[in-house]
């Protein structure tokens, strides 16, 4: 289900050119960014936005709202418990109106954003490993020189402190 109906109020505000919603982890939930911005930018942008918000929280103070000014545009970031909303504005935003609208959006669309966040595909942290090449008969296979694993019997022999357990040879023959 699209979140557009919730974001439309924001998008209708003057000078608002686009908006997006990221999960807490920075994965794209939904984007309403204008062309030429495509969803591909969010692989990088999502990570950078999360890094910025977390760095501010950790090193400065808990901050729910951040405003970034660029040459001709601004980006208003609003962090909530379950997502990060970004509003892309041409020029300087009317901040008071924007804050109220985004607060309303978060209140009305909480359940839908949570559901959409669950459906958002998690970003792979590492590229998938290539399948192993088939081994041909002529190939020389060199086994890695791994240290020999201890067997349970060795371990038992070594005892609790790594020393070989040597049972004291005591003679029961105390009387000689």
């Amino acid at each position, binding site marked *: 289900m699209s979140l557009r109906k919730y974001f439309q109020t924001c998008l209708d505000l003057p000078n608002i050119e686009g908006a997006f919603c990221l999960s807490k982890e920075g994965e794209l939930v939904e984007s309403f960014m204008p062309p030429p911005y495509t969803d591909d930018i969010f692989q990088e*942008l999502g990570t950078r936005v999360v890094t910025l918000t977390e760095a501010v929280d950790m090193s*400065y*103070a808990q*901050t729910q709202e951040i405003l970034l000014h*660029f040459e001709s545009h601004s980006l208003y970031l609003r962090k909530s418990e379950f997502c990060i909303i970004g509003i892309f504005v041409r020029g300087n935003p009317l901040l008071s109106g924007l804050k109220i609208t985004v607060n309303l959006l978060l209140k009305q669309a909480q359940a839908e954003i949570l559901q959409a966040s669950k459906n958002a595909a998690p970003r792979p942290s590492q590229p998938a490993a290539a399948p192993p090449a088939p081994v041909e008969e002529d190939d020389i296979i060199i086994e890695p020189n791994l240290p020999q694993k201890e067997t349970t019997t060795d371990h038992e022999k070594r005892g609790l402190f790594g020393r070989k357990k040597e049972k004291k040879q005591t003679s029961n023959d105390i009387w000689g």
Partner: protein
Amino acid sequence: MSNSSSTADTNSFPNGLYGYAVTDAGGNEIGQKGTISHSVNEFAPYFNQLAALVGDSLGFGETEEIVLFGKKQNALCIEIDGLHYGAIFKPKASYRDISEFLKLEGEENDVLA
């Protein structure tokens, strides 16, 4: 710019500005006026760098400023001529006034330098 804050220094401040600090790109403090808290002077260069990365993802070459809206106070980080300005101000103060003030201070410092 001196490290000590005097009444004369803060008299010229716009309404709501507690103080600001100037650091170089390496985080070394060059000067301070008024009262600075939350070590924003130390983190201003880092926040500016992170903001520049976000701007880069959106295709912008330069980030002009970053405003952090807290519950009790706001902060503004801005880079002027390679120096990083970090200011702390009241939530009700206008961040635009603070930004304009810092830009003027930056120009003055540049001329003095």
